[in-house]
């Protein structure tokens, strides 16, 4: 089995503060992985490094065992197949819901190609399918600003899927969702995994439980424990720094 993502000995400090400290992590192709950890554990910085937003001070980050992600920027990694969902839902507020999906659809990202682009029937159909999937068909013509918080989360997930990524980085998808929506999100992510690799950063333990996958606990920028949720929950160190509080 080849790895989708391989991090080894990665470090990054900001003004002396070690956000990531000798972090090593391997995600297999098609794997669903939950990453948990207290605030400041380095979860967001880890995602910034994977997507090329932040350059690490040291260590290796490899994609498919051959592409060095530390040399790429956000647009490069996105084109390579990394899709990222932010903690705070980030959609393009003044564009319509359907246009948000259209911009995310996998297509030529060049300037001229976009100036001359025409929406193909296949693309229209794909937009319809994704809107159906994230239950926003009725809202398609409304500006994204009009959506509720939970709907924006869903729209962003829809945009992520429209990119057709190999790896999804999902930052606290359940924040601001009702219990029913949270469970539906967990179902969706489980469905996606297998075909694509998924890393979910989450605080909500019920949600992590529903994901039913391998869990990585981050603490002070490195991996504290790894295994099933039951396994890491039983780890005394984890209990001390995180779960026990």
């Amino acid at each position: 089995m080849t790895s989708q993502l391989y991090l080894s000995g990665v470090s990054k400090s900001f003004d002396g503060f070690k956000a990531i400290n000798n972090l090593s992590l391997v995600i297999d192709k098609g794997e669903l992985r939950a990453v948990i950890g207290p605030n400041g554990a380095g979860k967001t910085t880890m995602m910034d490094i994977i997507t090329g937003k932040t350059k690490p001070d040291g260590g290796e980050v490899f994609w498919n065992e051959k592409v060095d992600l530390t040399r790429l920027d956000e647009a490069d990694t996105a084109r390579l197949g990394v899709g990222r969902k932010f903690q705070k839902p980030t959609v393009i507020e003044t564009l319509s819901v359907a246009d948000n999906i259209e911009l995310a659809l996998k297509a030529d990202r060049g300037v001229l190609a976009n100036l001359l682009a025409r929406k193909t029937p296949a693309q229209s159909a794909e937009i319809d399918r994704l809107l159906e999937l994230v239950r926003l068909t009725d809202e398609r013509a409304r500006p994204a600003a009009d959506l509720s918080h939970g709907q924006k989360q869903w729209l962003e997930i829809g945009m992520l899927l429209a990119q057709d990524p190999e790896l999804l980085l999902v930052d606290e998808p359940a924040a601001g969702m009702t219990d029913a929506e949270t469970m539906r999100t967990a179902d969706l992510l489980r469905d996606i995994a297998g075909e694509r690799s998924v890393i979910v950063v989450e605080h909500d333990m019920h949600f992590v439980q529903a994901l039913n996958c391998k869990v990585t606990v981050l603490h002070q920028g490195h991996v504290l424990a790894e295994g099933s949720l039951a396994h890491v929950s039983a780890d005394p160190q984890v209990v001390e720094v995180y779960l026990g509080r």
Partner: protein
Amino acid sequence: MLRRLIDTRMGLFLAVLFVVTVAVPVGNLVMAGQPVPSYVVALLGKYMTYALLAVALDLVWGYCGILSLGHGAFFALGGYAMGMHLMREIGTRGVYGDPVLPDFMVFLNWEELPWFWLGFDSFWFAMAMVMLVPGALAFVFGWFAFRSRVTGVYLSIITQAMTYALMLAFFRNEMGFGGNNGLTDFKDILGYDLQADQTRAGLFVAAAIALAAGLLVARYITTSKLGKVLVAVRDAESRTRFLGYRVEGFKLFVFVVSAMMAGIAGAIYTPLVGIINPGEFSPANSIEIVIWVALGGRGTLVGAAIGAIIVALSRTLLTSWFPELWLFVLGGMFILVTLVLPHGVLGAVEQGLRKFRRRRPLVEN
């Protein structure tokens, strides 16, 4: 395609523009008693060039969020390129009668034409420079600024510094652009006497056509998929990067197109007013363009053009009635619009018209 470009607001504006473009020359040249005086033709032509400049700024600011406080520089560079051609056209009719050197160079005891004046005797070369010089400056400036991810107020400040630096440079006689006095005393354009009513009317029509063309080009860009990417950059730049769009390329494209449009506006402005001088680079001019766009309605194109015309018209009227009040009125207009009409005059009018209809997105798709 036509339906995509011409929505109700664009259609109405172009219809009014067409009527004015026909009526003004007819009133000036054909009708007995000359109901439209010649100075009004030049004045309206000047308004049109301002309107085109406003559309250029709206393209980058309204749609892509690049608040340029230096767009006057691109306008002035276009104006200077045209001015250089008009200077060469003077030929032996200058005060010193030198067949090659413009008067100011003879006055400065220059022996020969500087290399960067070569070629400007050709109208078409000058026309190419009208677009290429502002375009090249925008490209180089944008290349460095956008790649370094300079955004927001920092970008605005360096655009302001850019136009200020150019103003200081153009004030110097050594630069070879007439220093303080700029370029003036033009005689004719393409063989037509610039003092003749027919020529003035021709320039007026040229300004109107350029405005219409500028609006349609800008509309083509903003209604394309690229236009949606621009809005995405404006509203959520980081998100757009994570979608795989190389944001700096899109910014650079629209900034260069906008600078060229501003250059064309400046090129028509110069023969209409008969002079181009370094004052056009003044930072205050560039800030005023922002006021036009905000007042008319940012992100609407047509609104920007209307805003420019409203401000220019008010200035003409007020500076003749109460000259000392003008700057207070301009400042007051800006504050009023910011506080009361967040979507500008056009936004307020349209909102009034569709008060009972369902809310629609600000940017039409």
